[in-house]
């Protein structure tokens, strides 16, 4: 049976992980994952979980034991990750708690620590279990060449997926029907998972969310954030379309968003901070008297990292001083509310280079329109 095992990327990551663990004096990592936050798990085990929860023990010699509480996941893990020891653990927390007794007197690390089941975290002192989230964050953020190649494939599918989305959008269709068309396209084209939210309407719309059954009508702005996953890696595109001809206000607002996004992308290069990028985006809003729409009352982030998680670090915000390094992948998106036209989005994915960035997104930065 053909599986979706991608040995090259995983082997690259594994070599890097084992080397980093050795350098940092970590004997074993305890990794938690679920379908919402599976990046730490995927990096260390090459497994992306869909149902239930997972814990993995990753030893310094590269041996991985993956504990899954769903028997359905066990079947898939055995096929997709032949190099991993897979254990069905219906009482996941209790069984791993018992196993950890065998690793006393070793230097253990855990990630992501905040999501670790509290019963296991309660044994931190007893087990010399340290929070190693930051250790893995560094590996997750700065990508290897094979990881960036996967990001490029995912970004190409962003472009193709958005074309499917535009073709599906027409008056009378429900928002969930647009999602159906996209997901069908993705399933047939190598996308295991897609995180997508959508907004439909006008000034009453303050953000994007999963579909609620709203039907498209003339004059609506349709915003979407499309985030397909290829070989574990998520790229993202944010675009807005109008049902019918865009109004002058919608065009003007979109031009401002584009100016902001391009200002942010122009700043991206090795050595700047996340705050530098956010500030460049937000300055454009401030210049147009819309500075308050860059605050948390109207927007979450001005972009974020991309990779094995939809919303990986760093968050692009003016108070985030994380250094941006060559090899990071980001989406720059000044998505926020406009007081006249409503919530508007525009975002492109990039790879950071020494002197700037490589643009991954190929879809034009237009305010699209579809026939009413």
């Amino acid at each position, binding site marked *: *049976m053909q599986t979706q095992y991608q040995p090259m990327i995983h082997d690259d990551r594994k070599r890097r992980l084992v080397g980093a663990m050795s350098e940092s004096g970590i004997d074993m990592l305890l990794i938690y994952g679920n379908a919402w936050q599976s990046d730490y798990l995927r990096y260390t085990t090459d497994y992306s979980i869909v149902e239930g929860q997972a814990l993995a023990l990753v030893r310094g010699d590269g041996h991985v034991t993956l504990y899954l509480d769903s028997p359905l996941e066990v079947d898939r893990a055995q096929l997709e990750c032949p190099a991993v020891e897979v254990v069905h653990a219906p009482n996941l927390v209790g069984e791993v708690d018992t196993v950890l007794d065998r690793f006393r007197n070793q230097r253990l690390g855990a990630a992501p*620590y905040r999501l670790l089941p509290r019963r296991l975290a309660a044994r931190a002192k007893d087990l010399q279990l340290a929070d190693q989230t930051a250790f893995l964050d560094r590996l997750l953020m700065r990508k290897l060449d094979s990881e960036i190649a996967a990001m490029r494939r995912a970004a190409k599918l962003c472009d193709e997926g958005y074309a499917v989305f535009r073709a599906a959008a027409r008056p009378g269709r429900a928002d969930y029907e647009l999602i159906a068309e996209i*997901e069908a*396209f993705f399933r047939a084209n*190598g996308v295991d998972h897609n995180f997508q939210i959508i907004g439909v309407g006008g000034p009453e719309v*303050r953000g994007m969310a999963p579909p609620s059954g709203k039907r498209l009508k003339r004059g609506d702005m349709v915003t979407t954030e499309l985030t397909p996953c290829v070989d574990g890696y998520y790229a993202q595109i944010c675009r807005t379309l109008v049902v019918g001809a865009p109004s002058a206000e919608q065009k003007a607002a979109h031009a401002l968003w584009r100016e902001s996004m391009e200002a942010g992308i122009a700043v991206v290069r090795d050595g700047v901070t996340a705050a530098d990028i956010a500030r460049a985006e937000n300055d454009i809003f401030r210049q147009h008297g819309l500075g308050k729409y860059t605050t948390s009352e109207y927007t979450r982030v001005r972009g974020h990292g991309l990779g094995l998680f939809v919303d990986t670090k760093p968050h692009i915000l003016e108070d985030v001083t994380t250094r941006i390094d060559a090899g990071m992948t980001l989406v720059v998106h000044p998505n926020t509310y406009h007081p006249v036209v409503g919530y508007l989005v525009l975002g492109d994915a990039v790879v950071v280079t020494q002197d700037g960035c490589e643009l991954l997104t190929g879809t034009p930065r237009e305010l699209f329109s579809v026939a009413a």
Partner: protein
Amino acid sequence: MGWDPAELPKRTLDDRVSRLQAAMKRSTLDAFLLYTNLVRPSAVCWLTGFTPYWIESILLVAPNGAPILATALSKRVSEWIRATSQVDEIINTPKPGTAIGQRLAADGAKRVGVLELDALPAGLYDDLVSAAPNAELIDATALFAAERRVVDEPERKLILRADALALAALDQVNAAEVKDAGALAGLVERHARLGGAEEAYIAIAPDLAADRRLIRISKPVPLAERFAVRASIAYKGCWVRRTRTFAKDDVGQRAIARADHWLNQFTRSIGADKPLASQIVAQSKNLPCAELKSWMAESCVGSYPLEAIASSPSPGKETVIEGSFLVLALDLTVEGVPWLGAAPAFVGGRSL
């Protein structure tokens, strides 16, 4: 999806909360906490209709009054939460554990029941106990499950709707024509979502002669003579699974038709009088030339949408509860033909 009072009346949610509150009083609990995220949404959804798509939240049920949801989702998303569920009070905060802990401390709560206490995320737990140092957190998973198990009429109808979506999606499969598993997964998912499914996980065993395990497929994989498709479908927070086996050959089709008919009859007859394992073994003998290889029963009893409650490796001895909901999955060989089937069932004669 938008909340529809005709599908899930407010009084149904109020009744569920009241049942939990009555159980809390019997166990002298001052409060009850239920965690929710994308993967563990079902307990909070049962009480409020709310299913998160992102990050984490926690629901506080006090002995009296409406539940309070503390969520890391931003204030902008509250409008969506209110449009899709029934939550009277929403606290938007980056630290839901702290917010609920402060509420517990202010209320003087001493004994606090928690659903799946051991699995609470460490960060949220630390925030909670820091803000409510005098509260004793007690695992109350069994208490919740006892109230949760019996399905009320609105939930039954939502399950039926989810099942209808799954069946219609699987009806799209034309075994004679379809050749690629990736395209097939897209076809089934598209149809389910066009019908209004909130979520659709499609898994395929593309060659049953080689391997009976069902996996997620999103790349071109050729389909063999006999294959199986599992559709796990959510509608308004209610999940079902349907698995069907397909064959291109006449012998396979006949065996599959007999097994499908048998499963349909069996799921209508599951009773609360005997352990499920004995019912399965007895019923499988009614299917001539069939060998039962394995089985699993899932239900929704806690935060997971569906979780195994009994299986061939762990059959258990307890009887199933009258009025509860199951998804029964079976692996058989019928007249030499591999067959996988899964279908939902209500225990005690209320057929789907």
